[in-house]
């Protein structure tokens, strides 16, 4: 009996760790989509960039893991600002189709560039010694790295929530998500707000990419391969909130891991079916505001 409990706990925690990585990557996408209504299919490319930069810094420059991830986040934020000013900002008021296509184009460019620079294979990640190994509690054993992921994800979610609910900047974001025109009419510069939010979201994605490199392998196909999971988290969770992607990511991570553990043949079918059911029943997502969906 306790054997089953130990297994269940292990599966649950693995799913939770996976969910935390998905959350860190997807939360930026949820906020920016809720803020500007911009369908950004290239969001995974920022997570990919973060992963590549972090791994390269660790391998080539011998930078420690935490520092590498932070530097990668800064670099990605910079790249995202450049892209936002030159490409994204031109399509804010455009209909859905051009936004979808432009960001698909970006994914192609990013993947091809990644393959050109780093080659087609997945990047090896060397976890530092203090993260390797497992926590032992009697019969229960769990990798420390994944526990750290869960902790960082929870801390990150709390910090973001605090930032959104308790700061002026967060208040401006919430105002613009709820009603952009009204927010602009009280003097909130929504374009500048978006640039900063986009940068923060991309930096978070980079952190997720770098930290989650052991779970979501860093390869040129990263942006395409995992796009659907980020999109699921964002659409099932609902746009424009922190809570939405947080709970959706946990659900996705736990359900996917459990399904693959119980019925390995099913692959990802359970997740896609579940997504379909949820979105059909609640098109605005589990925790979305009904008005936020374009």
């Amino acid at each position: 009996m306790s054997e089953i409990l130990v297994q269940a706990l292990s599966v649950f925690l693995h799913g939770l760790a996976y969910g935390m990585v998905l959350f860190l990557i997807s939360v930026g996408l949820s906020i920016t989509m809720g803020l500007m209504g911009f369908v950004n299919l290239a969001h995974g490319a920022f997570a990919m960039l973060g992963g590549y930069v972090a791994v390269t810094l660790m391998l080539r420059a011998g930078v420690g893991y935490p520092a590498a991830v932070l530097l990668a986040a800064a670099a990605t934020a910079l790249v995202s600002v450049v892209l936002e000013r030159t490409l994204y900002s031109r399509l804010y008021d455009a209909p859905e189709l051009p936004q979808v296509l432009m960001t698909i184009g970006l994914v192609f460019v990013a993947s091809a560039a990644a393959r050109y620079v780093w080659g087609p294979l997945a990047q090896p990640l060397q976890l530092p010694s203090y993260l390797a190994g497992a926590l032992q509690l009697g019969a229960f054993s769990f990798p420390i790295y994944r526990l750290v992921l869960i902790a960082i994800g929870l801390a990150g979610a709390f910090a973001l929530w605090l930032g959104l609910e308790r700061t002026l900047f967060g208040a401006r974001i919430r105002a613009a998500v709820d009603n952009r025109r009204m927010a602009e009419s009280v003097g909130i510069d929504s374009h500048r707000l978006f640039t900063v939010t986009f940068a923060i979201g991309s930096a978070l994605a980079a952190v997720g990419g770098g930290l989650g490199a052991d779970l979501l392998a860093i390869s040129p196909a990263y942006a395409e391969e995992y796009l659907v999971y980020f999109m699921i988290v964002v659409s099932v969770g609902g746009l424009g909130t922190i809570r939405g992607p947080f709970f959706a990511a946990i659900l996705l991570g736990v359900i996917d891991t459990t399904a693959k553990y119980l019925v390995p043949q099913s692959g990802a079918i359970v997740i896609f079916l579940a997504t379909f059911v949820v979105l059909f029943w609640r098109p605005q997502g589990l925790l979305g505001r009904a008005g936020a969906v374009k």
Partner: protein
Amino acid sequence: MPRIRWARVGLATAPWLFIAAAYVLLPDYLPLGAQIMIMILFALSLDLIVGYAGLVSLGHAAFFGVGAYAAGLLARHTAADPLIGLAVGALAGAVLGLASGALVLRTRGLTFLMLTLSVVFVLHEIANRAVFLTGGDDGLQGMTVPPILGLWRFDMFGRTAYVYTALVLLACWLALVHLVDSPFGRSLVGIRENEIRMRSLGAPVFRRVLAAYTVSAALAGIAGALSAQTTQFVALKSISFSLSAEILIMLILGGVGRLYGAFLGPAVYMVAQDAFAKGDPVFWSFWIGVVLIVVVLAGRNGVIGVIEDIARRLRKADHP
């Protein structure tokens, strides 16, 4: 005025003249030509949804794929005439279109996008896992396609396949033009432009859009069936998000909502891909991405859009 009329007649017949000419002048490229025409049919089906009804779908390969697998399985396990294979492909597409459309078409925007994505991903996973049925990652093979109507055998130069594909494309094209120019087709445009207004006029919006979606799915299924029959192979990619994105790109390059864009886009894309991608797929992927970004930011409606701009300018020169 006469100049415009000649231009219209020329435009209407040009693709078919070109297709006929290619049969005579480019005998080495007939297999590629057949594949291009299949993609044209696929793009036409997508244009009905994206260009005319105004719905952005990222899962259209689901219909292409089920059509391909249906016709492929038929060819592998029976000796049925290829025309029956087409019917089976169309039926498979239509059934999936009707079933998924009944659910998915109640939503719009991002939710619609995600639901179409979910459908194609579920089907992709099923096709991937049901190796006994679909061959999984290796694809469906070992099919023998009997001669069409017992008379025309599929030869190894692709001549029969080319003419067969061209005739099917012509038939579907005529049906589609008839549909688009009908009151039904006009009402689709109305729904695209202002759905609320159409509802207030009493138009049965949901039924119209569902009908269009089902027709589109059937056409995509026919394209898939053609693909299976002419290549005697069904790749797993036939039912993937990747192909859905690719056909959307081909359509956008040619131009949306003008039906002719569906001819130009795949032709340009696949000829270019044939020329460049073999040498360096990374190079190809990169430049397609760049072209896509440029085309979208330029704001013209693909090649068709540019042609229309020129035509408009010429007309203004006539009547200052």
